[in-house]
């Protein structure tokens, strides 16, 4: 087994990996950019080293700096987490050159499956059904436009190197094409350093169902079942659950077989996810392979009882998958919500800043994977994911009830979070019946909010009293958090302004 693992990431996933290492008795080495010195993963690691400026390109995306830390600290393995360099084949190559084990698929498998176009070609070869579209990057926008016209709108443009909804645009008609092309390419360039984009037919109202696969280095490939991730905002997953309410044992076997076939053909090793779109008739179409651990891996862990990060480490160390997991069936139900530093009342604009106070939910069936704490300043440079709140129970109903209970307990002040979005979704009849698709949430959000459930008598009184008390405490202390949390003190400008407004009075 490994002695010391370099965790080449930040935030909740760095903490998640660190915890698995600690349970296995493996030393952990963290890395941090200039703005992450106080991050939780740095506080919890056995060793931690600075790797440069806040901009990812100069820190978390720098293979040279990571390799330098690995050498200095004497690491024998590296875990990339998700995002950043996790799906960049240059990282496993650099590791191999230096005799460091990369905890993830080999570079060749990443190339054969990881990019959306390569994955699609492999799917066609292995007779896994795919969505119509180009399987290669297209350079000339006019050529792509002509193709879109012949295929019929709506179409979708996707970054070759994409993920997480970045560099992706749906084009409803010909008039929108030029702007969409420009935005997708420029966003892809900024996020991944690769502006190449390809085109696909846009399916109407599909569900997103993905299969978790694991492969060892000895030729065994297994499926650990599916996750339903249809609740998305702008192509970004917001809620994930396992099992999928629509997947029957028969469909689970078929999708699992297809995913395993694909992984085997691509020479895949370690954890990977094969994403599918599922239509109303339960036909499934290959979407892409995520050649890494997924953000939403905890829901699979909760219904299988497995620790996927520990499994990844064991497989990277050359261990065999220990038993016939082909027979695995999910037990109970698990659901995850992604809490972001976003302001749901203000078009979901990012809301970085200082967390002034925080209360985390606990109790039966609740798990919280996070990289934040009270007093922590959420930097503006990275992904807004704060926490993943996971609930599980015997049934979907019990799981949802637990999640709602935990969301009511979970409070963060100082910054805005999207917690109210989940309160709304978890009360929607469509969601409770699981009549959802990948555009469902975007469609819901343009509708007016339903009238709030009647508050208990006294709620408004209590709110007014609390506001008065807060104001009196903060006026007295003359210090409080300002809205951005960037500074401890209310800005002198603002205070003078408020004073001025009050002074104008008789």
């Amino acid at each position: 087994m490994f002695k010391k693992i370099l965790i080449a990431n930040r935030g909740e996933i760095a903490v998640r990996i660190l915890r698995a290492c600690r349970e296995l008795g493996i030393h952990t080495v963290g890395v941090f950019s200039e703005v992450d010195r106080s991050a939780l993963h740095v506080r919890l690691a056995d060793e931690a080293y600075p790797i440069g400026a806040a901009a990812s390109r100069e820190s978390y995306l720098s293979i040279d700096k990571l390799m330098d830390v690995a050498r200095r600290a004497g690491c024998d393995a590296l875990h990339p987490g998700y995002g950043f360099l996790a799906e960049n084949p240059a990282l496993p190559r650099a590791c191999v050159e230096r005799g460091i084990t990369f905890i993830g698929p080999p570079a060749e498998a990443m190339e054969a499956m990881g990019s959306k176009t390569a994955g699609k070609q492999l799917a066609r070869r292995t007779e896994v059904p795919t969505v119509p579209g180009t399987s290669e990057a297209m350079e000339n926008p006019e050529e792509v436009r002509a193709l879109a016209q012949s295929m019929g709108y709506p179409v979708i443009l996707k970054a070759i190197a994409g993920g997480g909804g970045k560099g992706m645009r749906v084009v409803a008609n010909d008039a929108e094409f030029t702007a969409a092309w420009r935005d997708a390419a420029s966003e892809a360039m900024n996020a991944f350093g690769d502006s190449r984009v390809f085109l696909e037919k846009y399916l109407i109202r599909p569900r997103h169902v993905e299969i978790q696969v694991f492969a060892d280095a000895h030729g065994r490939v297994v499926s650990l079942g599916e996750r339903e991730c249809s609740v998305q905002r702008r192509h970004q997953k917001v809620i994930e659950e396992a099992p999928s309410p629509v997947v029957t044992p028969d469909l689970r076997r078929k999708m699992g077989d297809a995913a395993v076939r694909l992984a085997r053909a691509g020479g895949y090793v370690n954890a990977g996810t094969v994403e599918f779109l599922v239509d109303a008739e339960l036909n499934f179409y290959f979407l892409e392979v995520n050649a890494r651990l997924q953000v939403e891996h905890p829901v699979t862990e909760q219904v299988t009882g497995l620790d996927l990060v520990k499994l990844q480490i064991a497989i990277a160390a050359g261990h065999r998958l220990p038993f016939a997991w082909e027979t695995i069936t999910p037990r109970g139900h698990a659901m995850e919500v992604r809490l972001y530093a976003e302001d749901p009342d203000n078009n979901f604009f990012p809301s970085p800043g200082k967390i002034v106070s925080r209360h985390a939910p606990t109790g039966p069936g609740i798990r919280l994977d996070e990289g934040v704490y009270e007093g922590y300043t959420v930097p503006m440079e990275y992904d807004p994911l704060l926490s993943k709140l996971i609930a599980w129970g015997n049934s979907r109903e019990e799981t949802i009830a637990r999640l709602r209970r935990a969301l009511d307990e979970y409070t963060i002040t100082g910054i805005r979070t999207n917690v109210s979005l989940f309160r709304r979704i978890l009360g929607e009849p469509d969601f409770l019946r699981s009549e959802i698709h990948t555009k469902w949430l975007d469609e819901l959000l343009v509708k007016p909010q339903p009238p709030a459930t009647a508050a208990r008598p006294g709620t408004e009184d209590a709110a007014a009293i609390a506001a008065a008390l807060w104001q009196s405490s903060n006026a007295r202390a003359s210090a409080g958090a300002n809205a951005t949390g960037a500074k401890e003190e209310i800005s002198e400008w603002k205070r003078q302004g408020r004073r001025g407004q009050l002074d104008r009075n008789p």
Partner: protein
Amino acid sequence: MKFEIQLEGANGKTTRVVELERDGGAYRVLLDGQRVDADVVEITANTISVLLNGQAFEVHVTPTLDGRLKLQTGPHEFTADVVDPRAWAGRKHGALEAEGRQQVMAPMPGKLIRVLVKAGDAVEAGQGLAVIEAMKMQNEIRSPKRGKVERVLMKEGQNVSAGEILAWVE
């Protein structure tokens, strides 16, 4: 101390007057002039526990950019304007927004990666004025009204902080 609280919730707006009097370590509370049975405790900086006739409420307070308060209790949310009535005579909102002239603020800190208009341009309500990148997402800042761009105060590539004025539209 006496406060006027303008409260806005899902069911509309109300105005309440709250008086807090220190009574040893606790507070005596008057609501709209009436003494109420309220036991108020500050749990942490922004979390306040209120027992109102025995009914338990926990209220979480987050100040917003425009100097108001976001209040959350259980699934319910309110926005509050708090005014000290001793000095109150009709607080003027957005003192700078005279005669329909609107300031366009950066809603969050980030990097201004694109400015889409220049001074003198005619714009429609909702038209994109600039793009700010924060937390890996590009967010378009839109015009609050139909009109003319009077001034653009920022350049592409500049870092902006939340609340900073990007442009004026008149």
